[in-house]
């Protein structure tokens, strides 16, 4: 009897659970609703295979940068310089590849290292000199943009070698060749099979995890929610996979993005470094007094952001097939907005990778849908701004109600 008091009953009532986690389910629901809305408003163009492919290509770099930005924001900081890093890396890669004729297998890792150095240069001032990140990265934003103009001498450079372009315009080839692409509806079986396998794996590992939790007395989310979530995500994934397979298959960027999302989800939920970033963002002094090297952690968060911004910079350059000094202007705002729409807290300590990813896709679908509808850039910005405000208000409102 006395021993058993420590294991709590994992049966949380469904409505209680919903109330506590309304943010996460609400976000997923919002994405689905927005997708359906634009599917309707665009007369079915949104879900056309070619447009889905475009959607992925257009948003991949925002998602990739949002992964790093989420860590920065959770750590209690901000990075305004990512748009300029994107432009600078795009320019440098163009100079190396086009002007100097270096091979891309050398250029890509080199550019990632330069990105890391740019992040480190800013992280140093934030972490060790205690200058507010807003100021440091504002300076970085100007400095890196200026350097881009200097490096490119104000002119665009292009076009890129074919292999480099494949980074963002390439597709995973259909090495299965189950049917003749000319006649069959499904032109790329690899895409379809990969998506089906992923969904099956997600359901299997989710079930396994629930079973393990039950054995250890760790509470599970109610089965209804688990099932509904799996159903929605599975259905959407299979539908999108099917659409992609009728066109050219899985874009390379989608695969890169998927791997990064999985990696950063793992880091934030399971790695000690992720846990420490959350603790630091929640209460830096307490984290420091618990023996956490908060300076080093902050420094690495910025290095990481630099690497991801560099990757994004190359993807964008490859996609546009030219490096221009104006590339990436204003991207930092989209990336930051994605994190906040995804539920990150501006005061640090709170935020999820999956939230930032969904936030980025909400922004992406709105951009894409409104462009198809022919809504001008003026109204697009207005609407996006209101959505950001509404999403954050929803958070604040929920928090107030909870207290």
């Amino acid at each position, binding site marked *: 009897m006395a021993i058993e008091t*420590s294991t*709590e009953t994992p049966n949380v009532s469904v409505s209680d659970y919903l109330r506590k986690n309304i943010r996460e389910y609400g976000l997923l629901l919002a994405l689905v609703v927005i997708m359906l809305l634009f599917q309707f408003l665009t007369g079915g163009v949104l879900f056309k295979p070619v447009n889905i492919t475009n959607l992925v290509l257009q948003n991949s770099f925002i998602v990739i940068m949002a992964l790093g930005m989420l860590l920065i924001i959770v750590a209690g900081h901000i990075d305004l310089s990512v748009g300029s890093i994107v432009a600078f890396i795009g320019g440098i890669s163009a100079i190396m590849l086009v002007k100097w004729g270096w091979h891309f297998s050398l250029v890509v890792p080199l550019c990632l290292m330069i990105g890391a150095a740019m992040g480190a240069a800013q992280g140093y001032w934030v972490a060790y000199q205690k200058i507010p990140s807003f100021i440091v990265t504002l300076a970085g934003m100007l400095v890196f943009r200026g350097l881009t103009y200097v490096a490119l001498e104000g002119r665009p450079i292009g076009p890129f070698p074919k292999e480099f372009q494949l980074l963002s315009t390439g597709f995973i080839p259909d090495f299965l060749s189950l049917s003749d692409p000319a006649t069959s509806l499904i032109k790329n079986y690899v895409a379809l099979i990969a998506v089906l396998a992923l969904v099956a794996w997600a359901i299997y590992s989710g079930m396994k995890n629930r079973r393990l939790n039950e054995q250890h007395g*760790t509470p599970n989310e109610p089965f209804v929610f688990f099932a509904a979530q799996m159903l929605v995500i599975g259905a959407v994934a299979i539908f999108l996979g099917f659409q992609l397979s009728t066109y050219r298959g899985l874009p390379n960027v989608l695969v890169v993005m998927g791997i990064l999302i999985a990696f950063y989800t793992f880091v934030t939920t399971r*790695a000690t470094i992720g*846990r420490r970033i*959350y603790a630091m963002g929640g*209460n830096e002094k*307490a984290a420091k*007094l*618990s023996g956490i090297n908060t300076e080093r952690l902050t420094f690495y968060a910025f290095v990481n952001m630099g690497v991801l911004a560099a990757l994004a910079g190359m993807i964008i350059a490859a996609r546009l097939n030219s490096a221009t000094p104006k590339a990436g202007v204003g991207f930092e705002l989209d990336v930051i907005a994605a994190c906040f729409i995804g539920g990150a807290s501006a005061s640090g300590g709170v935020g999820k990778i999956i939230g930032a990813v969904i936030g980025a896709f909400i922004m992406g679908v709105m951009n894409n849908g409104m462009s198809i509808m022919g809504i001008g850039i003026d109204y697009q910005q207005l609407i996006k701004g209101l959505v950001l405000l509404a999403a954050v208000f929803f958070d604040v409102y929920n928090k107030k109600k909870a207290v």
Partner: protein
Amino acid sequence: MDNIILEMRSITKTFPGVKALDSVSFKVRKGEIHALVGENGAGKSTLMKVLSGVYPASTYEGEIHFDGEVRRFSTIADSEELGIIIIHQELALVPLLSIAENIFLGNEIASNGVINWPATFARTQELLTKVGLKDSPSTLITDIGVGKQQLVEIAKALSKKVRLLILDEPTASLNETDSDALLNLLMEFRKLGMTSIIISHKLNEIRKVADQITILRDGGTVETLDCHGAEISEDRIIRGMVGRAMEDRYPPREPKIGETLLEVKNWNVFHQNHRDRQFLYDVNFKVRAGEVVGIAGLMGAGRTETAMSIFGKSWGHKITGEVTMHGRPVDVGTIPKAIYAGLAYVTEDRKHLGLVLSNNIMHNTTLANLEAVSARGFIDERKEAKVASDYRSKLRIRSHSIYQEAVNLSGGNQQKVVLSKWLFTDPEVLILDEPTRGIDVGAKFEIYTIINQLAAEGKGILMISSEMPELLGTCDRIYVMNEGRIVAELSKDEASQESIMRAIMRSGEKH
């Protein structure tokens, strides 16, 4: 009586769960210096906050008579209008503004929103002369010392036509010369007919200036002593301050004391912010296995600073001295090193320094020793949950589950979570800084029980507390600190509230 300027009648003020003031009565005569004394938490500051309107009239019971009329203040502005001015221990000056700007902040000499600088400077000059300060009105506050800052505060009070000046521990952070200057100034003002109330722990100073002394204890008035009759000794005052019966609030313990674990030698530390001011002087102490050692002292004596400077040099500057564990010198230069050496520091400020409030119990429990539940940088969630559940049941943390956020726990349970965190690092010596502050009696008893268990397991406990009965009830040996020095070491038999207070007061006179 005609010469009574202030009378507070049966003031009762309750906070959730605590009666801070219980029917306190307090009379001040016109033109006198009235001292208010009592232990930490006796209710002095609360009483002054009631008087100055920090706590509006609707939040307490009782009456305030000022100038023979009943007054009900709902804001500080109401009391200031009558000339009741309070100068807090934490000075309320803006460091980067000038003396003149500070004196007239919020009360500027201006017409239509435009400041009249010549008039401001002239008036400031007048006020500064009154308080005996020779600095220019345009000097920045940050460029003058604490003693002068205190005088600026008084000048600011004078600018508001002060009739009753309240000083909350005005000399706590002053050296002897500055303290004397301040006290002399108060006596000057008395000659001019001004009334003041001074809150202080320094009994020698009080005896020097006070006309009457009112003693508070546990939220009640004990007595008011008149200094013009027979000589009042410090012992007499101390007896009034501490004279309460020890209750049976502490679980019994059979100490089994072993070898020396932690020893600190010649520990000298300079102030974290005022870098040329030495704060701790030659602190020496030791903690043995199975021993509960207390550090007594008043606020600002340097107890927390001693603990934090030892724990990874997380407070202070220019730290010198030696720390040994089991007789061998250890490096405590960073917090991870201090933890590695076998130390743990449970902070007095659990909300700001102890817990990540937005994280759950489990995450807080493992924060200082994540390696123990992870392999190659990845956390084993089930192992972590088991650790957290074990501590939750061992320390009887009351919560829905280990997944409850720390922010939603009561003070006592939050404290237990902080304790869990440090116990999980498996320290040899635990430094507990005010471990029972702000928690209820039941939870206190549980914390004492935990302390006893830890000592029985052979750990060394160093306990800092401002509650003397708590130290007397739990410790095997007590060090007394005052003004950055260890001024006495008392065995369990020697230690009493009187002997501790006496050690503090005596040392205060020496320096």
